[in-house]
């Protein structure tokens, strides 16, 4: 029963990792870019929303909406500064390094808005309940369901809408899209804004289950998102979901059986092991093989 409980906790919280990993995968799997400033943009949007709340008292829904809007805007800013100038096949490393610089900038802005280092974040749905001896936090259950729902929305936008179609087209071959006259600048801004909104929803849910925000939240998001993405398979969207849940499972079991101080070291050991045994992550090699096969046909 104890094992079941830790697995349940792990899965519920892992769904948050899945959301973060999906946001990274959108940019990596679809745009072939790593945005290191992503976590910081979520932190800044959260801190900014709290700041707005402290002045205008917009309430929890207001905080949520301000987070979504500001995260979209911050991510478009990141895209215009770091990624749009370095589009094309060879800009991947340059844009990653410049996103590192923007990360520092955004973190500094956040600490400027967060002089006390920690601020409480409003929670909702505080009650918990038991099902046959299993302890379940309602807010985490809610987080899980929203994560499932948002994953659906994510795939719908990417595979069923025109923007999603053009986004996939631009990412596979930006040069061709440009020749056809597709406005790749707008599509790329859309991708960043979309990942920003998506990440902000995840960040809001995570912060309200934690009921506080600290300056480390940005780094935490980037790290967990990247690790979950690498576990699941770089570039694979289903892999991001699996990687997130898997990361949650590892962490909760390690914390329960070995203690919290072993959490990170075990996580990285398992990551190392998976990358050695299955390079590219759990779902990654299939993606690589498909891409190579497709490009050889052309």
């Amino acid at each position, binding site marked *: 029963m104890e094992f079941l409980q830790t697995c349940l906790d792990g899965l519920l919280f892992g769904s948050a990792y899945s959301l973060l990993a999906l946001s990274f995968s959108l940019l990596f799997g679809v745009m072939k870019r790593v945005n290191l400033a992503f976590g910081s943009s979520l932190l800044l949007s959260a801190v900014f929303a709290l700041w707005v709340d402290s002045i205008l008292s917009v309430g929890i829904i207001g905080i949520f909406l301000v987070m979504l809007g500001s995260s979209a805007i911050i991510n478009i800013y990141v895209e215009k500064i770091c990624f749009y100038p370095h589009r094309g096949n060879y800009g991947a490393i340059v844009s990653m390094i410049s996103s590192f610089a923007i990360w520092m900038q955004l973190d500094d802005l956040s600490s400027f808005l967060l002089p006390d280092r920690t601020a409480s974040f409003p929670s909702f749905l505080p009650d918990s309940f038991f099902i046959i001896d299993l302890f379940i936090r309602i807010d985490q259950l809610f987080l899980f369901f929203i994560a499932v729902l948002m994953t659906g929305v994510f795939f719908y936008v990417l595979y069923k809408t025109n923007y999603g179609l*053009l986004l*996939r087209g631009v990412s*596979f*071959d930006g040069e061709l899209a440009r*020749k*056809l006259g*597709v406005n790749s600048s707008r599509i790329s801004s859309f991708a960043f804004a979309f990942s920003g909104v998506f990440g902000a929803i995840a960040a809001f849910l995570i912060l309200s289950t934690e009921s506080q925000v600290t300056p480390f939240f940005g780094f935490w998001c980037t790290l967990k998102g990247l690790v979950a993405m690498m576990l699941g398979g770089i570039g694979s969207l289903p892999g991001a979901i699996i990687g997130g849940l898997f990361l949650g499972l590892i962490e909760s079991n390690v914390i329960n059986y070995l203690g919290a101080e072993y959490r990170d070291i075990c996580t990285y050991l398992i990551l190392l092991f998976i990358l050695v045994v299955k390079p590219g992550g759990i779902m990654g090699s299939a993606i690589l093989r498909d891409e190579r096969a497709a*490009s050889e046909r*052309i």
Partner: protein
Amino acid sequence: MLKVDDLVTSYGLIKALRNVSLEAEKGKLTCILGPNGAGKSTLLFTIAGILKSDRGSIQFLGRQISKMKTSEIVKEGLVLVPENRLVFPHLSVRENLLAGAFSRFSRKDEVEEDVESVYQRFPILKERYLQEAGTLSGGEQQMLAVARALMARPKLLLMDEPSVGLAPKIVNTIFEIIKTLSEEGISIVLVEQNAVKASAIADHIYLLDQGEITFSGSPDEIEDNDIIKRAYLGDITES
């Protein structure tokens, strides 16, 4: 319909196009022949707004388009079929077609109609509409590239070496398709290296060499001009 006047385009210091002037008439197939590196693709890219010209004017249906963005030029009805049968390899055949209609996504019924008419024209694409475009054969990919351009409802098609890298039998099919499109009244500017095949279907021919137009005339006039005939067509009478 399309009037290019005194066009100069350069890559850095190198002038790829030097004072190129040409005209494409409505409903006609205008062919631009020339060897590798003559500036043929540069010319098409400049007309399509992918490259910017240094000087000169490009008029399409009486409107100056040399300063327009590619997306605006596509909306005007001037659509490029890029070289090397470029398709989006990971998108399905149907998605590739839809991507060609990006400039009028809002009119869904119209786009669906066009997809159907493209399927009628190229039944093989209908058979494979869910397949990833990267898994099609070379000829099918070229058909898809042409079909995708048709999805933009072009008034003038710019075709960049549609026969390159294809088996001779497939090349015939592709030229049949081009001929049919032209007969249906779609104006075409065709850039080719396969001079024999191209001059067989062209209404008017320009020769482009080292960025300059060296000849302009009907296919028959090329026949009469021995020097040019030998340089560009090879001696077809003997073979």
